[in-house]
């Protein structure tokens, strides 16, 4: 084989390896969506978050961090949203009914929908 052939073969091997490694390391992103009365008002890509963020939506204070979200404070009477604690997996949500605020984690899931 000539030198040129080795170069072609090397380039092909390298290209295949690079593409396969990209495929393997691609992470499934988890998004935190915040809805106010059914409308999405903010979306965060949790894996891209560098620092914790605190956002207040309709008197509900929400902490958003790389490993999950929780409601810190709310003026609602029952505090169910605060007591829901931290959510960290796709499909989990916190709902503050009196303030109409929903915090949920979305992303790639095996199922198209969940019946409950």
């Amino acid at each position, binding site marked *: *084989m000539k030198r040129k*052939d080795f170069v*072609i*073969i090397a380039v*092909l*091997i390298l*290209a*295949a390896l690079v*593409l*396969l490694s*990209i*495929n393997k390391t691609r992470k499934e992103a988890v998004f935190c969506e915040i*809805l106010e*009365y*059914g*409308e*999405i008002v903010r979306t965060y890509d949790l894996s891209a978050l560098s620092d914790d963020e605190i956002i207040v939506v309709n008197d509900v204070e929400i902490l958003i961090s790389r490993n999950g979200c929780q409601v810190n404070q709310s003026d609602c009477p029952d505090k169910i949203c605060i007591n829901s604690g931290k*959510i960290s*997996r*796709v*499909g*989990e*949500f916190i*709902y503050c009914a009196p303030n*109409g605020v*929903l915090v949920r984690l979305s992303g*790639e*899931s*095996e*199922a*198209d*929908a*969940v*019946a*409950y």
Partner: protein
Amino acid sequence: MKKFKTALIIILAIALVIAIILLFGGRKKEQVVINGYAMGSVTTFKYFEDKAFDLSAANELENLISNKIDNSEISKLNENLTAELSDITKEILEYSLKVAKKSDGAFDITLGKLTDIWESSALENIVPSENILKSLLKDTGYKKLKIKKNTATIEDGMKIDLGAVGKGAACDVIINAARENGIKSGIVTVGGSVGAFGKNPNNNKGWTIGIRNPDMEIDDQTLMNILIKDGFVSTSGNYEKYYEIDGVKYHHILDPDTGFPSDAGLKQVTVICDNGGLSDALSTACFVLGYEKSKELLDYYDAGGIFVTESDKIFIIGEGFEVLDK
């Protein structure tokens, strides 16, 4: 040697193509997700076309059938004991009455006052007494609801509550509206009721629906996944809505015979059929009936069912779905 070289380059080129297919071929078709709020629940619709669509059909339905909205047709019926019905409200009342009849009254939409007393008693942290429930039960009974043409009448003291079918019925109207807008496939959820139609562009076998694990606190913890081609999935469970009185949980699915939460030995029932409102009604009926008595009912409606008993036995009956994993 030259042949070997050519063969090697061909093999490597094929490897490169496979790598490209692995990288890009597995990507899901771009989906549009829209959210709303109807029937006291978050509503989500996913579809795969570049078309504008909204979920107002669910809110329009809620304005007709909710007993919590003043001036809805059902509120007027409850207040005036008679009301003119739109075709959709009439249809919902009619299939609800049919499920009531076929289930020997295990499903009953005339329990509005009983639900009210459980809600108000829970706020005062007391369990409604048997006497109160008995006296309220006198004013219930699906046979007392009459529909002639588009006019419905009920008896004095009665209260119609379509809460047990509202979410599934909302799935129906959203899918109908989507079809009318030329959308070819999609999947809708209203709370925990699910409806899917058309071909899933990401899976030619159909739509994967997770069934919530009744023992877990959160909805995405699934017991199993099922695959459906087209249709509706509704689940009734003792965890979904309950009243906590003195530290004891009383779930919200009432037995029309006693007025107390039904106690038929089930934690959860999932029903799969071709109509959303109907699958909601059937799942409630089955939860009250228990597994054995539900078989005939589901058979009549050609519906599928997944039952989880209190002793954690799982029974799967009927057709129209495939269990993917447990």
